[in-house]
């Protein structure tokens, strides 16, 4: 049985010096790597077939010997290797995927795909449900949600922030505000399905207080209640320091309350890396009373 090859992406570290890397840059990088590794013996009879890029994915191809056997923990070993060699951070920072294709007798026998989130040191598991029923700041709203494991859970500082989940420079807030009256789900769904109305609501939600750039918005449902999903970039000043925050938020129209679940990170890399986690947290939200 031949060992699963450990792969080196040193070229990646040397090449990158710019802050952002476009798909075109990736193409050039792949071309450069390809020139250096194509035809090379990687050890254990594995030969490199070169490197290409597709979109934001670097693709490495290998020819393996006939007696090559794939080990079940191959992906984990690759991930570990990338982390140990220090290249994982670059993949995360520049939001680059990496794929490995293995060919035996000209047939593709194995693929391994690694996303930036796979390389993250953040834990994507969620903890047990946390309820805010009868919380003094809940304004009568009964909901439960699963915070991410290993994140700190704190009380909100400001009057409308019920709870916050914190990890490094990343936060997830539960904010509850009053609406001027009750809105039925039926009416809100109809209103938000109109693109112009949806756009107006999105602009209202991001506000004018800070310099906010609306990156995207859409109509979604959160546990059967109509909501607006927004991605934004906000620049603000705090105690003389300029801060940029990357945010995603879900503003849920729940009876006569507007519940905003707001996730933010101070680095774009962390924001992209954690976006799936933010989705998972929001998806875990339950309004139990509708099931009574």
């Amino acid at each position, binding site marked *: 049985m031949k060992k699963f090859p450990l792969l080196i992406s040193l070229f990646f570290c040397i090449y990158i010096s710019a802050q952002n890397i476009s798909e075109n840059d990736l193409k050039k990088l792949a071309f450069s790597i390809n020139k250096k590794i194509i035809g090379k013996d990687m050890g254990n009879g594995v030969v490199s077939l070169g490197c290409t890029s597709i979109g934001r994915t670097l693709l490495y191809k290998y020819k393996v010997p006939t007696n090559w056997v794939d080990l079940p923990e191959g992906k984990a070993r690759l991930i570990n290797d990338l982390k140990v060699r220090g290249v994982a951070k670059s993949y995360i920072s520049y939001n680059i995927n990496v794929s490995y294709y293995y060919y035996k007798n000209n047939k593709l026998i194995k693929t391994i795909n690694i996303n930036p989130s796979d390389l993250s040191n953040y834990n994507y598991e969620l903890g047990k449900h946390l309820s805010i029923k009868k919380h003094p700041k809940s304004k009568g709203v009964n909901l439960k949600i699963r915070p991410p494991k290993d994140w700190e859970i704190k009380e909100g500082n400001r009057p409308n922030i019920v709870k916050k989940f914190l990890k490094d420079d990343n936060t997830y807030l539960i904010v509850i505000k009053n609406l001027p009256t*009750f809105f*039925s*789900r039926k009416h809100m769904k109809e209103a938000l399905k109109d693109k112009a109305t949806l756009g107006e609501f999105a602009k209202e939600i991001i506000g004018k207080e800070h310099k906010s750039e609306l990156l995207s918005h859409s109509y979604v449902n959160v546990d059967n209640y109509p909501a607006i999903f927004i991605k934004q970039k906000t620049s603000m000043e705090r105690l003389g320091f300029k801060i940029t925050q990357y945010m995603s938020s879900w503003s849920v129209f729940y009876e006569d309350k507007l519940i905003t679940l707001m996730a933010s990170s101070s680095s774009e890399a962390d924001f992209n890396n954690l976006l799936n986690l933010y989705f998972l947290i929001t998806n875990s939200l339950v309004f139990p009373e509708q099931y009574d």
Partner: protein
Amino acid sequence: MIRLFTFIWQLRKSNFTKALITIHYLFIISFISNCKKNENIDIELINKIRLNSYDDEGEFDIYLEKFYRDMNFYGVYPQKPKKTIIKFSKLDELKGTTHIHGLSLGYNNDELIEIYINPSTWKKFNKPLKYWLMYHELSHDVLNLEDLEQSTINDGKLMFPNLESYEKKTMEEFIESYLNLIELNFKKQ
């Protein structure tokens, strides 16, 4: 009563004894779980209801506040009374009101809100039913609206006079029902 007459008509061809029993049963059912304003309750009973009442410890404040808020949002500005009484009263312990969830005594009197709620009902009701009951009584007292006719066409509307204890209402149904009431009775100013 309409339901009663319809049923009697359908039964006239069947066994007389069976019909009698069914009519008797229907008679009882039609009086279960009503929401009432005071037109059929005598003064002695009203006094007993008042004597039997006790404070809600602020339980009903939020409903009153939201009622005015919602009416005002849609351009309805009813007069606020000089006196507001919304209390619990053990209606199921008084002969004549045992079947009643809530009672409004301030109908057609803009100087007064006077509503009594059966605490046994209140304990059993979920959130949408509580809103339903309170908005129904407040619509009598504040908006001076009558009950709708007890017919199937009005079933599910806020001012329908019957609300069964076992009924399942959702907040969605409650919101739609009071919006429907505003649309039917008022125009936005």
